[in-house]
């Protein structure tokens, strides 16, 4: 029996943009800044589509939570080969716990065999939602995936961990979060981008879900990190070796 995959994608400030902290400390400037699908989510979509092409799954549903503009991220996912999209529309900035709760109720409705997410969103750098969703839906999880194979009701996942890699096996249904070495996301060709617009997209207001999304944390301020100043040029290898040798001696003396 071929399965169903739900992929959660987030629209974020493009990873190449050098962000600016607002002078009043209220946050990061996102007006007029280039946005795109979170890079890790691209790897998640690619994995889902590839599993479909390999015959493990037959449907890929792409879901995003955010303002109307988040539709772009869903369209990117559909252009890459997703079958249909769901936008949970809200202009509020939601915490990861709230995002996970909304996704959990979509999992409840859709009953996917596998949920794929990015391991982290490059704006808040949280690295939470996959693990939280797994908790709320009582599913096993495999985070930081660099390889996925699907065999019947078993998933084998290679995870990137502190000591190298860990190969784990989990029974479906499960939650997996994608790391960057999982695959190379395809660039959707123009005809696919055009076709994406005619794929089914359901837009659901956040209010429909009846979930308490009130924030638990108060962001007091957002500040810029201390700047590292420019340094000095070293003329020769000899000069550099002398400096390093001195540093090493100082460290040995201190410890």
């Amino acid at each position: 029996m071929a399965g169903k995959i739900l992929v959660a994608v987030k629209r974020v400030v493009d990873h190449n943009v050098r962000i600016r902290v607002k002078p009043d400390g209220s946050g990061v400037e996102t007006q007029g800044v280039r946005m795109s699908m979170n890079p890790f989510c691209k790897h998640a979509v690619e994995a889902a589509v590839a599993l479909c092409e390999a015959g493990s799954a037959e449907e890929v549903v792409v879901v995003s939570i955010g303002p109307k503009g988040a539709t772009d991220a869903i369209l990117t996912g559909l252009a890459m080969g997703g079958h249909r999209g769901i936008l949970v529309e809200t202009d509020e900035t939601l915490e990861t716990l709230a995002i996970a709760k909304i996704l959990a109720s979509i999992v409840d409705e859709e009953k996917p065999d596998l949920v794929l997410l990015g391991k982290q969103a490059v704006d808040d750098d949280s690295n939470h939602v996959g693990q939280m969703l797994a908790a709320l839906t009582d599913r096993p999880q495999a985070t930081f995936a660099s390889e996925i194979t699907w065999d019947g009701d078993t998933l084998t996942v290679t995870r990137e961990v502190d000591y190298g890699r860990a190969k784990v096996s989990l029974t479906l249904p499960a939650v997996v979060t994608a790391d960057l070495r999982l695959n190379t996301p395809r660039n959707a060709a123009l005809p696919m981008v055009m076709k994406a617009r005619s794929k089914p997209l359901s837009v659901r207001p956040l209010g429909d879900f009846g979930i308490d999304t009130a924030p638990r944390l108060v962001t007091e301020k957002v500040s810029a990190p201390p700047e590292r100043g420019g340094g000095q040029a070293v003329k020769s290898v000899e000069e550099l070796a002398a400096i390093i040798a001195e540093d090493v001696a100082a460290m040995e003396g201190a410890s």
Partner: protein
Amino acid sequence: MSVLVLADHDLGRLSPSTARTVHAVAELGPIDILVLGEGVDQVVADAAQISGVQRVRVSQDSGFVGQSAEALVPLLAELAEGYSHIVASAGSVGRDVMPRLAAKLDLMPVTDVTALLGPNRFERPIYAGNAIETVTSNQTQHVLTIRTSSFAPAANGNSATIEPVSHAPVISAARLIDALRTEGDTPDLGSARIVVGGGVSVGSAEGFKLIEQLAAQLGAAVGATRAAVDAGYAPNDWQVGQTGKVIAPDLYIAVGISGALQHLAGIQGAKKIIAINKDAEAPLVQIAELRLIGDLFEMVPALMRELEARGVRQA
């Protein structure tokens, strides 16, 4: 207030990050360390020595081998009741486990904490470290992960009480089938005083050996860029940056690394950066305290010879 710290360990050894985590939360109240895993006698003994630790709680259940989040979280959730703060280092286990625990407890976690400004006020980096967020939590309990490179280790010289914990059988639908460890005995990246980092410009796995040799000569840990890891020149656990490890050595020597913002995210804590690059305009060269402009294939071997001549040689 009291704190439960989940010990970070592997292969029966306590990770240096645990003493740093303890130091980070030392002000919050009495600290218990929880050790979960098989063959962890040495881990328990070492944890009991960390200053500020009141009690080491341990279960040697075989279900904790592999440290799957699914196996660890039910017990953590049960034990959490007695604590105001449940804390782990932001390593691969902490990052995997703590958000799952938080959701089980219906709590919003605060992760990658780089400063504690009080029991419920924390700083954490966002946007690859290009902004720092200060958050206050009004929750009654706090689930935290600590970016340990931002904290010094707590001292040794304690002898905390050791107590077994009893619990229900461990169940997990996820199971470790193979641990593919990176061979070698290079120092831990997170706590090393010197790190030598290499980029994709080394051109091959053979070329990356230059970086490893320089590191060995200095007793340094080895770091790599994502591009070098993607190319297969270095193992994934050497990656430094937004999605790799975060380092804070006294000295970081970056060889042939451009300094993309995702790489810089991992090295901001370095006290001194030396960049060796043929491009004087590279972003990493721009922020380095010292720069040597030239071809790494000439510079690195020459540097090793000059260091050797000054008595810096492999121990």
